[in-house]
């Protein structure tokens, strides 16, 4: 005899959802604290270090903020870009591959195009990256639209293919390979010429990279794009019901192609900003933003302002763990990923509780 029965809630109230999310996150932090305690670390001290990213009592605190922002920019843009395609229910999990393609294209410009002003070089780098990443997105979208090829698996394969491309470039010493340092016998990625470096605005000791401003501006633009433009409107209709979109006379294929181009081009842009800020490229340049971005987008329910906040918090978590790792040898930076996983699991549970409810059978008719 089953007395209880699951019923999908007719409405999910925002307040209730947020409350459950908060409970979920707190619970995960609690689990994280228990892990720390078991390993003999005071959780309060550790979390204190982590969430203040080592700013407290640090003369060079501004350096930490610079470092944090440098990592934050690619994650933010990538998460925003992925939200764009997920909103259309297009499962682009190729963020890593698209990022690498963009990074390589931008680096080619950085190494090969010299003698131009800094601004122009960086702009060219961005354009090259956006086009090459965008084309990958378009190719995948075209196959999906035309032949209904599984986009999740396709983009997954592209991630790995691109990873080996960059490894090949980074590990092959050859005459043609302008990516590497000439003077070194071992293959090491070279540093960009000065003209390819991302400029910055000095604010006292602190220097604010232009890329941060670009990223924030982009976030606002995409927010407006999704919320107020015809394109954004089309994306939400296609994502909600492609049958309705067809009924309304929209050309669904065209919308999917266009959106995937924008989404992957943005990821390419994130890569260009990342290599230009770093002044070099490496096979770990992605910093896993292609993966983390998916989690950020999902945690934020594809809401752009929420993506901004979530990606910032996740970056604090990641970066804070790196900082804290130097002082707690027992806890390395993987703790961040561990915690991130636990948080997402809890949020998935919270999401369920917010959307379903258990009813007793006798009460079912009042559901």
């Amino acid at each position, binding site marked *: *005899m089953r007395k209880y029965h699951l019923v999908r809630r007719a409405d999910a109230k925002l307040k209730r959802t947020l409350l459950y999310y908060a409970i979920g996150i707190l619970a995960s932090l609690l689990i994280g604290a228990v892990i720390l305690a078991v390993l003999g670390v005071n959780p309060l001290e550790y979390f204190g270090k982590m969430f203040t990213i080592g700013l407290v009592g640090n003369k060079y605190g501004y350096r930490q903020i610079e470092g944090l922002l440098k990592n934050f920019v690619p994650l933010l843009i990538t998460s925003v870009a992925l939200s764009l395609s997920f909103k259309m229910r297009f499962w682009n999990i190729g963020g890593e591959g698209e990022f690498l393609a963009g990074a390589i294209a931008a680096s080619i410009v950085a190494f090969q195009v010299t003698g131009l002003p800094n601004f122009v070089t960086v702009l060219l780098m961005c354009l090259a990256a956006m086009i090459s990443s965008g084309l990958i997105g378009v190719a995948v979208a075209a196959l999906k639209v035309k032949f209904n090829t599984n986009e999740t698996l396709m983009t997954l394969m592209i991630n790995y293919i691109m990873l080996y491309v960059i490894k090949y470039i980074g590990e092959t010493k050859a005459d043609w390979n302008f990516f590497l340092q000439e003077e070194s016998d071992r293959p090491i990625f070279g540093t960009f010429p000065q003209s390819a470096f991302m400029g910055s605005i000095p604010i006292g000791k602190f220097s604010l990279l232009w890329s941060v401003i670009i990223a924030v501006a982009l976030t606002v633009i995409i927010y407006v794009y999704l919320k*107020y433009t*015809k394109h954004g409107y089309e994306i939400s209709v296609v994502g909600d019901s492609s049958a309705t*979109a067809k009924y*309304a*006379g929209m050309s669904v294929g065209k919308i999917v192609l266009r959106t995937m181009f924008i989404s992957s081009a943005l990821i390419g842009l994130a890569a260009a900003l990342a290599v230009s800020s770093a002044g070099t490229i490496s096979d770990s340049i992605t910093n896993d933003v292609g993966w983390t971005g998916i989690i950020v987008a999902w945690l934020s329910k594809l809401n752009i302002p929420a993506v901004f906040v979530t990606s910032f918090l996740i970056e604090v978590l990641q970066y804070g763990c790196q900082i804290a790792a130097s002082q707690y040898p027992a806890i390395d930076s993987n703790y961040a990923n561990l915690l991130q996983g636990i948080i997402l699991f809890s949020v998935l549970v919270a999401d369920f509780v917010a959307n379903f409810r258990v009813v007793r059978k006798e009460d079912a*008719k009042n559901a």
Partner: protein
Amino acid sequence: MEYAIELKGITKSFGPVAANKNINLALAKGEILALLGENGSGKTTLMNMLSGIYMPDSGSIFIDGKKVEINSPEDSGKLGIGMVHQHFKLVERFTALENIQIGMRDDGRFVHGKDVRKKIEDTAAKFGFDIDLDKVVANMAVSEKQTLEILKVLCYGAKIIILDEPTAVLTVQEIDKLFAVLRKMRDEGHSIIIITHKLNEVMAISDRVTILRHGEYIDTVVTKETNEKTLTELMVGRKITLNIDRPLIEKTHPLLEIRDLTIKNDEGAVAIDHINFYIRGGELLGVAGIAGSGQKELCEAIAGLRKIESGQMIHEGESIVGMSPKKILEHGISMSFIPEDRLGMGLAPSLSITDNMILKNYNEATGPFVDRKSAREEAQKVIDKLEVVTPSTETPVRRLSGGNVQKVLLGREIKSGPNVLITAYPVRGLDINSSYTIYNILNEEKKKGTGILFVGEDLDVMLALCDKIMVICHGRLQGVVNSDHTTKEEIGLMMTGTLNIVNKEGKTDGIAKDSAITDEEGKA
């Protein structure tokens, strides 16, 4: 009499909509019981509670006199109940044998066992089925699939067999064959419930008939002691006087003409079979027919969402065959279809009322931005005029109750000022007041000179509201009648295929005499 099944006071609601209200039903052992009712009368929902898909909100079920609880299809199977669903539940890529084996209990652990095959073959032979057990379902014809579904439940040892509209997909010869099998099953001691709309079939096959209407139990009669006329009355209800206005408008020229139109459904079977009709300006033409007689396909074809096989569709002298949905919209044809789940077509459920308002004309705004300001005003206008109950214009449509969803949909359709309005089941699941609001909207449109095609369910309403009613059965035109010169009984007989008045009395129904276009021109 000992009953195989007894249902007492069964009630089931989906959200605010009650699909079954306090229903009683009894199936005697070794009889064939027909479950008769119009679309939406709750027959399938009721049967799905026997098959374990749904659980009743209240009421009790007795099998062989014992009170039981059916929580899952597994429970249902164990109690000896087998259901043949209207939409077949078959794994397309499996063979017939494999499909049967999925549901077998305690019959060997290995597939393709010799004894299993033998058992199935014996069952098939016993009831005279002719079936290739190694044929893959995807390669089967519809009738083969159905044979397989029936064989399946017999192999599981079901003593109570429920068939949901089994004849809907069969030819006349196949129906005869099916009935022979059903009789044989009855003689072997099985108890059978058959859901159907077709009165001639009810008369031919059943021992008793239980009638449902609007989710309520009406009556159970012995087939031998009744006739088609009585049954029709029970099914559609006695004529109630409805105070629905029917303003008489000067009819203008034919706006939309459909000639010799043939359309296939998703399964590739003919859904609309050589149909002719036309709609004039200022005219409200009703389409009556049993559910699944091709209404959906017809609406989709006119809106450009479905390819047609042959025939012509002419709008104000121009062929719209092959036009994109967008082009057809721009021509002034608007279509709204309320599917059974009431959300599917025409609305984006997660988007707000405002956003749904502009679904068809968002592109008209200049510049890259969507004009939400006027959209919001329009949404507010629709909300005020049609009395939509909603917290605000920004509420997602999904959160509205059914009636309000339909008002939003219809409100949008008429605001674009179409000259042909096609609306299917606009009052599906609505209460009386909301329904009247919708009727008034349609009448206002008619007064403006719009030609309206109204696909409906309730004959009383259609007789009161429509100027003319076109009746279709199995995709074939049974005739077009004038609402003032017909009766519900006549329409009922036409809907069930008993009466066909096309080409009677020397007149070709459905073709406009004063059409601006000759047949030859249309073809060109």
